[in-house]
């Protein structure tokens, strides 16, 4: 056994690691279960007290795919053809027909429209500088110019979508860029698909709004607090009811649904702290500095305050001239909790962003600090000069999709339509602001090209049937193995169970998601994982017939089976890699579990069972029964 020290350590290490990575998943399950027995007030209190820890658990638990927990998967495509049309300096029949060719081609080959346009122009000998860039530019220069414009447009769309999803308040959303012009949005637990579609598709609204008088804003918040104090009991009741419903629904679907305790807790924070006299002002730190914001609040309080501000009952107490908007990005961070600023603005926009022609982030020549220059068209410039002239020394908020991105102070009346915004922290901030300002100038429409929505009840059904089939498969295979290989079969079954634990552990460790095809992959692994053991056992049986000693038999069995195990598994592994590379969404989940399963099954069969056999034959009168 001495020579097996390394093997023992490696088996133990793998098992401990797997359990370590699965522990948060268990904690999560356990906590959700405990919520069912606790009263909603108790659960709310628990969530509030252990918020950091719960977030950590949620971050590390094994995530379920949208097909299992319900939710929405949307692929958006930025309409680059429209962008190319808009960017063209001259609109004539030639560019129209070229773009038409690009549309037909890209529909067929899925290539990037920008590249395709340059190809079309090259092949028909047309100089694109007539339409884009500088007149002396070669087509290759135009290509890089258009590519930059394209990336800009996609990044802009990405930013707009991020802000909107952020406002919508989904737990654990994922927004990623794919290829040249596609954006993938994954929203677990979303049930209102219509609203999400509207949210994703509508064009961005850029507005300039003047700041309201701080006194008015504060008075309004005080009034709201008073009214909320009075109507508190009713608020509390509805909040409690909705929490109970939510907790039960969450437990029903799977115990690990995305609408975790965080969302539930936020919902009911109002009831738990309902006795606080000032539900809004107790959460908002009033700022007295000249930033222009009314106050700041952390990300959790932000959600609660928003809920009150958006409550239709409360809306009638907010003056019609006043609108509250949050800062788009956190203004600060304290112990990992983000702090946001609340602005009180005039409800009616002083101007919209439609007249912005261009915006650019640069380093200002005067102060050598980052700034953003902005250009407006003639009509916009006129309006702009009146607006800035009448409001010198006041702050003007730049609002995109109801979020405040910046609130610069108007220094002087701006005529001619060229403005610059300075006082920015760094070039990244300037770049972001440039993107925001361009959202009005160069709208590239975003289309939904694919959608996959799964309701929570179907997700719950899928989990149920997935687990059911996995258990049945495990049971039947275990039975067959014991029947065929007796006690060696039992050993193979233990290896199989370790295998499943390790697969889930690896999945959790790599922050993979478990999907329905993923479960199918695990079921398949149950069938195929015993293969390595079967190979070894069959080989041992063959070797036994040659009349070797027990130890020699085992050695020969394992040694000779090894090449077959290695070669056969690696070919299957390769197909898994290919599937992962070319597949999308759920299919990748299948490929991932399949690949992990291959590695773990080889490990358990070759290392773990061997270890046990070695232990058995090291004892006196050792006997092995493999049927």
């Amino acid at each position: 056994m001495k020579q097996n020290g390394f093997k023992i350590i490696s088996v133990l290490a793998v098992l401990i690691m797997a359990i370590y990575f699965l522990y948060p998943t268990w904690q999560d399950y356990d906590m959700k279960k405990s919520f069912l027995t606790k009263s909603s007030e108790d659960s709310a209190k628990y969530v509030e007290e252990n918020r950091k820890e719960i977030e950590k658990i949620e971050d590390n638990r094994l995530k379920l795919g949208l097909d299992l927990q319900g939710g929405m998967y949307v692929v958006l495509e930025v309409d680059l053809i429209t962008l190319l049309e808009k960017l063209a300096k001259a609109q004539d029949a030639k560019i129209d027909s070229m773009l038409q060719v690009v549309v037909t081609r890209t529909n067929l080959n899925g290539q990037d429209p920008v590249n395709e346009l340059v190809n079309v122009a090259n092949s028909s000998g047309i100089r694109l500088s007539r339409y884009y860039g500088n007149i002396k530019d070669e087509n290759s220069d135009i290509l890089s110019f258009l590519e930059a414009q394209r990336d800009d447009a996609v990044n802009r769309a990405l930013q707009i979508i991020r802000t909107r999803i952020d406002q919508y308040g989904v737990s654990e959303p994922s927004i990623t860029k794919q290829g040249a012009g596609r954006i993938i949005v994954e929203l677990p637990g979303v049930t209102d698909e219509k609203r999400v579609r509207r949210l994703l598709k509508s064009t961005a609204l850029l507005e300039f709004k003047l700041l309201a008088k701080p006194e008015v804003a504060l008075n309004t918040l005080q009034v709201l607090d008073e009214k909320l104090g009075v109507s508190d009991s009713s608020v509390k009741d509805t909040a409690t009811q909705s929490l109970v419903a939510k907790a039960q629904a969450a437990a029903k679907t799977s115990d690990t649904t995305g609408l975790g305790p965080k969302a539930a807790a936020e919902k009911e924070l109002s009831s738990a702290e309902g006795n606080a006299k000032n539900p809004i002002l107790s959460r908002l730190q009033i700022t007295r500095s000249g930033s222009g914001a009314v106050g700041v609040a952390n990300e959790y309080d932000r959600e609660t305050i928003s809920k009150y501000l958006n409550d239709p009952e409360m809306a009638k107490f907010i003056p019609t001239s006043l609108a509250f908007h949050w800062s788009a990005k956190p203004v600060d961070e304290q112990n990992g909790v983000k702090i946001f600023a609340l602005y009180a603005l005039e409800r009616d926009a002083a101007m919209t962003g439609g007249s912005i022609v261009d915006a650019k982030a640069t380093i200002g020549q005067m102060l050598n600090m980052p700034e953003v220059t902005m250009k407006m068209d003639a009509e916009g410039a006129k309006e702009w000069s009146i607006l800035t002239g009448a409001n010198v020394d006041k702050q003007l908020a730049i609002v995109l999709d109801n979020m405040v991105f910046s609130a610069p102070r108007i220094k002087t009346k701006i005529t001619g339509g060229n403005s610059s915004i300075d006082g920015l922290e760094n070039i990244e901030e300037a770049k972001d602001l440039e993107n925001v300002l361009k959202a009005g100038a160069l709208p590239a429409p975003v289309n939904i090209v694919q959608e996959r929505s799964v309701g929570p009840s179907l997700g719950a059904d899928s989990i149920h049937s997935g687990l059911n089939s996995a258990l049945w498969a495990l049971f039947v295979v275990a039975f067959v193995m014991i029947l065929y290989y007796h006690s060696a079969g039992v050993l193979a079954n233990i290896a199989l169970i370790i295998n499943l634990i390790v697969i889930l552990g690896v999945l959790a460790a790599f922050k993979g998601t478990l999907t329905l095809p993923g479960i199918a992959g695990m079921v398949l692994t149950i069938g195929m994982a015993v293969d390595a053991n079967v190979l070894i056992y069959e080989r041992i049986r063959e070797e036994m017939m040659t009349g070797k000693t027990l130890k020699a038999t085992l050695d020969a069995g394992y040694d000779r089976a090894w090449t077959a195990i290695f070669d056969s598994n690696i070919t299957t592994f390769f197909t898994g890699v290919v599937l992962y590379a070319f597949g999308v969404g759920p299919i990748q989940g299948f490929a991932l579990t399949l690949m992990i399963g291959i590695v773990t099954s080889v490990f358990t069969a070759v290392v773990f069972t061997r270890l046990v056999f070695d232990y058995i034959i090291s004892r006196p009168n050792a006997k092995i029964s493999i049927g």
Partner: protein
Amino acid sequence: MRFFKNTSYDFIGNRKFGYMVTGFLLVIGLISIMTRGLHYGIDFKGGTEIQLRFEKSVEVSEVRRALNFTGINGEIKRFGGDNEILVRTETLVASDVNGQRDVTALEDKIKTGVAEIIKENPMEIDRIDDVGPKIAEDMKSSAVMAILGSLIIVLIYITIRFEFKFAVAAIFATFHDVLVVLGLFSLVYGLFPGLNLEVDQTIIAAFLTIVGYSLNDTVIVFDRIREYRKIFKSDTLEVVMNKSVNSTLSRTFMTSFTTLIVMVTLYFFGGESTKPFAFAMILGIAIGTFSSIFVASPIVLEWDKWSTARNAKLTK
């Protein structure tokens, strides 16, 4: 318990039987693909699929009437339980301002129609799958790339580990398996009520798994041939092959059997959406096992005979 102990079936000698079976399956499969065609899922064709769940059981004809009421003329069929219905439209039912398919409008139409015609049976939407034509085109090409890519990678690997002859034979056997399953998919489409044998992403995943599985089987036989060729140097390749297939027979049976039963459990317990996958896998495992015995090794043998004959001719 023990099956196939010290067997000595003459698999290779009877390879003509194997050729007949695979030839037959291939031919009827290909004929079916050519005449009956393959039915693609919306993944590859584009379109919208909406899965409805009614509170009580519902007749397909009733749902059809309800949907026709609001102008939806898609495919309507049962999906799973008798209260579940799948609606599919490939044509544009409603479009938004940008000329894209408008799922919200479609959803509303379904809800209105059902609320109007099927009154006392509330319905909810369980699942919406909407695939645009461009995405469908992309998915189709990446599916083809995936299958070809995996075959090429494996060709290279087996050439390195064994011989080119073996690699070609393994690839041929594997490709044969995929083709036969595809043919059977076309052939039995519509024969089993409630089983949606459409070719979509999940089926491509099944095909790739079959590729992996079948190769696994083939490689294990090849591995034994590689070993026995060194041990039984005086035996002809045919004899070595027979010995190899026979001595791995017990393992082949056992692994195929366990994999087959897990796929059968998946078929019955895994829910509606994994059924086609499990079905493809069951066919694939059966055919893959068969081909690793009757197709892969015999091809190597035929090739070897042919090249020896040619060499003999050349030396003459």
